[in-house]
């Protein structure tokens, strides 16, 4: 899987680059813009130092890492479709995106027929191929007389040296200007990129960088780093060099209302201040605040995953107090819906999927996934801080401190027992995060861990340098070492590593170990059953292997030095890596840490995540929560925190991430902070300046309601008053508390509305896209129609008190049906007489039964209170009731009163309906099918 993803990324991004590079060659050595020389300390551009006039020997020798490899990248040599391919190309391989300097150097200089011939420069295929002096499948990539040629040639003349152990390392890339604000189309800028090395050397590497625009509608950037403004909007251009990835914001205001021309208005909160600061640059004026009804609906759906009830809406709309929105937010955060819905979101991000749980434990078939949900739900309900929740997941192991295997099994069995009231949710850890079948290998754990808690995608770095982030393959390999000692032992692991205790327990349960049929699923089903009946059964467990015998610091230092040496043979390096595995590990972007004296390496990982300087932990959660409220994250997609994918509003993200940390990772702090801002409470109605912007939060963005929430919303909106109240307070049976993701009998409606599949370490497992099938469901699915008309529904409730008035046309039908029943009864009576005469008891019984049924139908017809008048007459006699009913239909679906037009239209519809019940049903149906219902707005 990783291989695919990595290739995709490469290919997507660099498809165009090859073409660009070819173009570059034909541009010859002329650069578009003369170099700037504002700093004397900076080594000048390589294309100036190596123009064709300076080709004579003795000039400066370029470096492999600083110049040659980046140049190969610019020439397209190490691309995925060329020598960067994992099989190489034409017998020659380079590391993809050129970050494996050792291997690249080796591949260039070693072998029977090395590409680089220091002794015979002109015979070097390294030059001959790209010059197309000999056949080259990749065509001509290099021309004599260019600076590129000069650089490669001089490097060989200088001995074609690679990277040595003591060489300077890359520190950072400085790119200027730091921000581009455009005034008109066609305006241009030249980026300048200066690389800073650990020995203090600084070099203008602009001609060696790769460049990319994140949106060519806003700004284009060519291969020389020359930026052209294209149109209004907000994006970034990005420069890449070595391990540096530097995005430069490009802002092209959408109106003249920027800076001093921007209208003055008060901002209520820090969030608003920061949002408006960005909008001011863009010339975007935010929309006004939304109505009370919109606020109530939006906040209820977002915070509690629940539609407000009619009585709640009425109370809120008529409440005159100025703080009522803040009060409502506080109230919503205490509702059971809050804990249920946000537990579900946390289950999305942590990957709670029944199908991934081992099929060989007594918790199989939805028990483990229910435990998982309940555990998180318990924490959210008591507002445990996010870091505490994460601690319970990260450090999870199955047994408590000092607990024996038997005691552990007894405790676990009690969670399954029908008798016992013990709850899994009360125990300190959530081992199921670690028992997932797609989370067993260290690689998988590293990927899943980074996704869940850091919002970072390190898939690419599993095989090669991440093309859009700082991560290298080495970073990945060292990071994954944190996980090598965490394992799932399906049959427990007692001292000495055996499974004797497990077997003993089976024997004690009278389970015949020799019964070949009783294994796998069947065995575990039976164990599950026994546990439910109060027996103690054996369980699998998450264990952390003890540290290996520590190695002395000097020895470690020696090994590290050897590993880092240029001369080490690949085989030896592999050996050493194996030796070090589990002994040392490196947090992303951090230092090498020793693990061999630490009982649980995950503790280091956790400590690192919780450090104040950790850039991911707080940001990733804050950003995901923000995205839940605003449709898009400040970083979008929300689970892709990477250098080339910068936040649309860094100050805003920092403020929230910092505040969240300072609050002690109090999730309710975050919800309050967001919900109480004007930014959250803005109207969806756009103005001319913010119409097209969905990323800077100048207005609300209408979005489809998530699967579980819309499913529940249909149930609440169609429910009678009592049931609706119940649905709001007893959330266990609601879809927002669904614990069956990944089961084979998934709910159809939830599936088509895009409930998260929780499968692939991606927030996009949840789909928010609408589809025709969803509309077909809402309009016509039996489940939907049954919800409207079911016993106990609102429709049932309101129409029970009003007679089924029929219009005159129905009278005819009524009379016809009564008449036909009468005829049938007469016929049956005759048959009964005959049967009595014959003494046929069975026939008598059957006929009597039929007659009884006919009489019942007749009574039902009469009871339907046939009314000689029309629905229209009834309406005119009951105007108040009618408008109350229509009001209620509106309040329970779109959470507002109908307008006069809407009221008139609804009454008119009712007037023409065959019965009042039909008419009311249709009005409710129509409201459930409006966009206003399906969207959160």
């Amino acid at each position: 899987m990783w291989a695919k993803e990595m290739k995709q990324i490469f290919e997507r991004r660099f498809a165009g680059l090859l073409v660009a590079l070819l173009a570059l060659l034909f541009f010859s050595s002329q650069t578009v813009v003369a170099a700037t020389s504002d700093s004397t300390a900076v080594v000048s551009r390589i294309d100036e130092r190596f123009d064709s006039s300076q080709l004579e020997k003795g000039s400066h020798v370029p470096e492999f890492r600083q110049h040659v490899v980046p140049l190969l990248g610019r020439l397209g040599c190490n691309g995925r479709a060329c020598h960067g391919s994992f099989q190489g190309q034409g017998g020659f391989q380079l590391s993809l995106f050129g970050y494996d300097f050792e291997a690249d150097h080796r591949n260039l200089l070693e072998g029977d027929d090395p590409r680089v011939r220091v002794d015979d420069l002109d015979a070097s295929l390294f030059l001959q191929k790209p010059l197309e002096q000999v056949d080259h499948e990749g065509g001509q990539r290099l021309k004599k007389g260019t600076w590129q040629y000069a650089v490669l040639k001089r490097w060989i003349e200088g001995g074609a040296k690679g990277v040595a152990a003591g060489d300077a390392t890359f520190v950072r890339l400085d790119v200027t200007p730091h921000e581009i604000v455009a005034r008109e189309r066609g305006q241009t800028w030249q980026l300048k990129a200066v690389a800073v090395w650990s020995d203090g050397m600084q070099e203008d590497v602009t001609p060696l960088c790769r460049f990319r625009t994140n949106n060519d509608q806003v700004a284009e950037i060519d291969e020389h780093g020359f930026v052209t403004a294209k149109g209004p909007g907000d994006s970034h251009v990005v420069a890449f060099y070595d391990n540096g990835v530097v995005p430069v914001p490009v802002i092209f205001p959408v109106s003249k209302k920027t800076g001093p021309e921007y209208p003055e208005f008060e901002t209520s909160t820090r969030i608003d201040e920061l949002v408006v600061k960005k909008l001011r640059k863009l010339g975007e004026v935010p929309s006004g605040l939304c109505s009370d009804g919109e606020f109530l609906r939006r906040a209820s759906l977002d915070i509690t995953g629940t539609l407000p009830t009619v009585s709640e809406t009425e109370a809120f709309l008529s409440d005159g107090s100025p703080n009522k929105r803040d009060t409502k937010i506080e109230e919503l955060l205490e509702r059971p819906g809050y804990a249920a819905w946000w537990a579900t979101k946390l289950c999305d991000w942590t990957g709670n999927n029944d199908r991934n749980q081992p099929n060989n434990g007594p918790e199989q078939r939805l028990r483990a996934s229910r435990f998982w949900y309940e555990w998180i739900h318990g924490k959210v309900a008591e507002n445990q801080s996010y870091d505490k929740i994460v601690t319970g997941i990260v450090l999870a192991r199955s047994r408590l401190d000092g607990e024996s295997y038997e005691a552990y099994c007894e405790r676990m069995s009690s969670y399954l027992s029908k008798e016992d009231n013990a709850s899994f949710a009360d125990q300190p850890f959530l081992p199921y995060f670690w028992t997932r079948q797609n989370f067993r290998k260290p690689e998988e754990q590293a990927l899943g861990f980074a996704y869940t808690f850091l919002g970072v995608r390190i898939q690419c770095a599993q095989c090669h340098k991440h093309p859009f982030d700082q991560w290298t393959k080495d970073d990945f390999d060292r990071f994954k070492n944190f996980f090598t000692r965490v394992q799932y032992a399906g049959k427990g692991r007692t001292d000495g590593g055996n499974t004797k205790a497990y077997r003993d327990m089976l024997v004690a349960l009278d389970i015949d170990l020799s019964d070949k049929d009783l294994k796998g699923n069947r065995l575990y089903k039976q164990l599950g059953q026994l546990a439910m009946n109060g027996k103690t059964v054996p369980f699998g467990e998450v264990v952390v292997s003890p540290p290996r015998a520590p190695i002395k610091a000097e020895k470690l230092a020696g090994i590290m030095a050897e590993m880092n040496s240029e001369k080490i043979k690949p085989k030896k390096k592999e050996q050493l890596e194996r030796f070090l595995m589990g002994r040392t590990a490196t947090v992303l972007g951090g230092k090498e840490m020793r693990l061999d004296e630490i009982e649980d390496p995950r503790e280091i990982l956790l400590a690192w995540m919780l450090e104040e300087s950790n850039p991911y932990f707080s940001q990733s959660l804050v950003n995901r929560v923000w995205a839940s409220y605003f449709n898009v994250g400040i970083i979008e997609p929300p689970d892709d925190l990477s250098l080339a994918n910068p936040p649309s509003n860094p100050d805003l993200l920092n403020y929230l991430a910092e505040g969240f940390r300072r609050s002690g990772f109090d999730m309710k702090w975050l919800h309050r902070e967001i919900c109480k801002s004007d930014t959250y409470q803005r109207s969806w109605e756009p103005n001319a300046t913010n119409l097209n912007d969905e990323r800077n939060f100048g207005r609300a963005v209408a979005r489809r309601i998530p699967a579980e929430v819309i499913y529940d919303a249909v149930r609440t909106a169609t429910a009678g008053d009592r049931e609706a109240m119940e649905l709001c307070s007893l959330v266990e049976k609601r879809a927002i508390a669904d614990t069956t993701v990944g089961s084979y009998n998934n709910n159809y409606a939830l599936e088509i509305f895009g409930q998260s599949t929780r499968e692939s370490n991606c927030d996009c497992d949840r789909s928010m896209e609408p589809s025709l099938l969803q509309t077909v469901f809402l309009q016509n699915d039996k489940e939907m129609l049954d919800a409207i008309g079911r016993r106990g529904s609102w429709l049932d409730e309101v129409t029970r008190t009003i007679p089924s008035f029929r219009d005159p046309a129905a009278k005819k039908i009524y009379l016809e049906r009564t008449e036909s029943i009468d005829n049938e009864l007469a016929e049956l009576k005759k048959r009964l007489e005959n049967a009595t005469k014959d003494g046929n008891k069975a026939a008598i019984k059957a006929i009597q039964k039929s007659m009884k049924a006919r009489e019942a139908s007749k009574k039902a017809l009469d009871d339907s209170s046939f009314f000689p008048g029309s629905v229209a007459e009834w309406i005119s006699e009951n105007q108040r009731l009618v408008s109350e009913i229509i009001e209620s239909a509106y309040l329970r679906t779109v959470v507002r009163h109908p307008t006069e037009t809407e009221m008139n239209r609804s009454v008119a519809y009712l007037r023409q309906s065959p019965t009042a019940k039909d008419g009311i049903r249709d009005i409710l149906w129509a409201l459930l099918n409006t966009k206003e219902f399906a969207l959160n707005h």
Partner: protein
Amino acid sequence: MAIHRTCDGVLRRDFLKLGALGTGGLSLSSYLRWTHAAPVQPKGARAAIFINLPGGPSHMDTFDPKPDAPSEYRGDFKAIKTSVPGIQISEHLPKLARCMDKYVILRGITHSLAAHKLGQEYVNTGNRPIPSLEFPGYGAVVSRELGGPGELPHNVAIPKNNQGGTGYLGVKYAALATGKTPTPGLPFSVRGMTLDGSLTISDVERRQMLLEDLDQRFSLIQEKNQLVEGLDRFTEQAYKIITSPKAKEAFDTSRESSSFAAQFGETKFGQSCLLATRLVEHGVPFVTISYGGWDTHRDNWNALKNKQLPPLDEGLSALFAGLEQKGLLDSTSVLVTGEFGRTPKINTTRNGRDHYARAMFMLMAGGGITGGRVVGETDDTASGPRHDGYSPDDVAATYYSLLGINPKKEYHTSTGRPVMIVRDGNPIRELLS
């Protein structure tokens, strides 16, 4: 609207949607005007079936055998003669060998995206993926261009769509996914499509008018917001589908005569082909069938011989025959493709073949093209096209041309950016001749 995101770490649209909005963006009303006007029917094909084989089927072991290649390339399968002299295909495709005259094999199609998702996006859209824009799949373009009876969906995916999204055309052209495949002999329908017996058409019509009148809250942004516009379109379309007996009938494969249905066999793929035939017959302009399982990194020959090829052989040959029996082959353009081929050189450690985009096969049939031919050629080891080869873009341009759609036609994205339906390809003349 929520932009479709991918899992590959690539930010698809980091921008404001700004610019000349509304100038070219197709609004619902203009769309409706267009579909309500009698569309000019193109010559040749009026419908298209796209058979997607996600995973990337091995070209050498199917339609591009190299019996004389060295053993590290050749593989276990023999090549057999087909009904057309000189053309050989794999021995495990006997039925398709017998009906070679119905279709064309394209060999040596070539590209460079050897990753599933990107390759899929490429062959599903005919445009090489780029970061800043999502291209629409064939189904979205064809349903937009050809339209179709209002009471039928214009784009159906059996059982679901893989990568043929709607891209910049927006969700309103999205495929209706059946979610399942028919079971032989049993009535088939898509859930929710049949109207409750207690409602009359006039009841439903009256109710629909009420909905239209009450659903006005977003009329202000109706034409400026793809989400709102798309939902409007779905509302109208769902109504038509639900109220028409035609839709119900079109999906119900059990109404086919048993002799006709029998040739498709009982596999899911065969039943999908049967359903596709029936849908096209009833006027659905675009049907996608997805048949996966081709990612044979390991145990390639066993998987192909015992699992993958028999249903393909039976189902596809029946599709060609069935379309012909119904007189639909000439008016239905069929394209069969995976996202790439597989490495000609055998991966001996896993006894499989890996991703390989430099050479792959595709099949085309119907829509007025002459079958019984091979177009294009690969070298002796099937490692690349013998000459320049054709790209997926070229095939796309051909496919659209057969349907009377000008592949160079320009659309405007919601930001006003002009984009041609197929940006780089040219129709393959050899194929159209």
